[in-house]
């Protein structure tokens, strides 16, 4: 066994898997003989575990559509110019409230333009719909057959009392739901519905609204539209490729039931 003097440097090497295997035993013995170094090592191990766990959730987050689109070449990156300046925010994150408006869904134009929060909500809801409604086997994380769990889980995560509206009168059955990242650090619930012909609509709900507003929003190139409203501390959008009248009817029904559910 090689004998050499160890130092604090070796604590880092051992922690990072860079200590040669044949030195390990001697290192461990050195650590045992030096309580101060042993404590330091234990602390670094704990800090590393905390670092890893703080960022572990990022790996499970769905990849934002705008990032997939860059790789797949599906969207022109014309939003680059006004995309939030991440580096400025890094330098002066405290001063600047940058980044709330991720510049994705290029080419989307609003019909009834409200505040920017509205646009962001509608864009996120549409992006979620485009991404997940097209999926067959992976459209939802929790199926409608587990509706009670779905409601409890999403309510807890989003921070709102959430009921999945019954849209049978409008011809739609609940497929299930999933949890999504919303702007900033928020979370959103997405509930997916399907009619007899397989036409899908989604309901997108987040808890971070202090505004009161409503309107419709659509991409200039076609695709699904969103009917949204912001009220009573939550923001909600119904997205689908239905005639506007029908989408509005569905939205009204969903709105009524959500409000009733929240205040019940």
């Amino acid at each position: 066994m090689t004998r050499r003097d160890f130092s604090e440097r070796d604590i880092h090497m051992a922690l990072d898997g860079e200590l040669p295997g044949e030195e390990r035993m001697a290192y461990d013995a050195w650590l045992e003989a030096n309580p101060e170094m042993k404590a330091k090592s234990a602390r670094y191990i704990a800090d590393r575990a905390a670092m890893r766990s703080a960022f572990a959730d990022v790996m499970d987050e769905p990849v934002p559509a705008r990032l997939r689109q860059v790789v797949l070449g599906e969207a022109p990156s014309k939003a680059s110019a006004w995309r939030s300046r991440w580096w400025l925010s890094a330098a002066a994150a405290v001063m600047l409230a940058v980044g709330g408006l991720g510049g994705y869904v290029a080419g989307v134009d609003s019909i009834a333009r409200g505040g920017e929060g509205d646009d962001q909500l509608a864009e996120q809801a549409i992006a979620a719909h485009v991404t997940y409604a097209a999926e067959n086997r992976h459209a939802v994380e929790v199926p409608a057959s587990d509706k009670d769990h779905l409601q409890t889980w999403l309510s807890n995560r989003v921070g709102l009392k959430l009921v999945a509206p019954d849209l049978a009168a409008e011809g739609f059955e609940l497929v299930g739901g999933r949890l999504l990242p919303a702007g900033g650090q928020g979370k959103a619930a997405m509930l997916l519905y399907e009619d007899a012909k397989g036409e899908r609509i989604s309901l997108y709900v987040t808890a971070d609204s202090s505004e009161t507003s409503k309107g419709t929003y659509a991409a200039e190139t076609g695709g699904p539209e969103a009917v949204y409203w912001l009220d009573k501390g939550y923001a909600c959008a119904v997205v689908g490729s239905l005639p506007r009248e029908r989408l509005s009817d569905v939205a009204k029904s969903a709105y009524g039931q959500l409000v009733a559910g929240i205040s019940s």
Partner: protein
Amino acid sequence: MDDKKAAILSEIPRLRRYARSLLRDRDSADDLVQDCLERALVRLDNWQTGESPRRWLFTIMHHLFIDQMRKVNRRGEAAMLPLEAGEAQAAPADQVETIASREIMDALQAISPDRRAALVMVAIEGFSYAEAANILGVPAGTLMSRIARGREELRGLLDDTSRRRSIRIVEK
């Protein structure tokens, strides 16, 4: 979809995690990832077959990050970062992060970008010293000293935070 694009897609979660640890804010971090992906696609031909897509993409992203940090520094904007940046940055409060996670994320933001990158690269992303030194474009010795100083600094910041927290509790 060709193999290269598929390989790039599968690295996105890791790139996002690394960006998040560098920048803290979710949207800003995703903007950095987007810049990285855009640049990667333009340079797809530079990517040698056989070269790990992970290393290639991390190198691109790290250059973007460091270049901008340097520009910002030259303009002196970094001076706007107060010492208590960590605390102020936690302002967009949310129920998602635990207190422990928030503290460590804030503390990471408060150490220098070079040390932050080196530490995260090895401690979270699991690169070896050789790989990380290669990605960051620094000698192994420099990498090691950044990691050691980064860890020491992080520990000090976390201790300060918990001290302040206990003071606050006592004051209540």
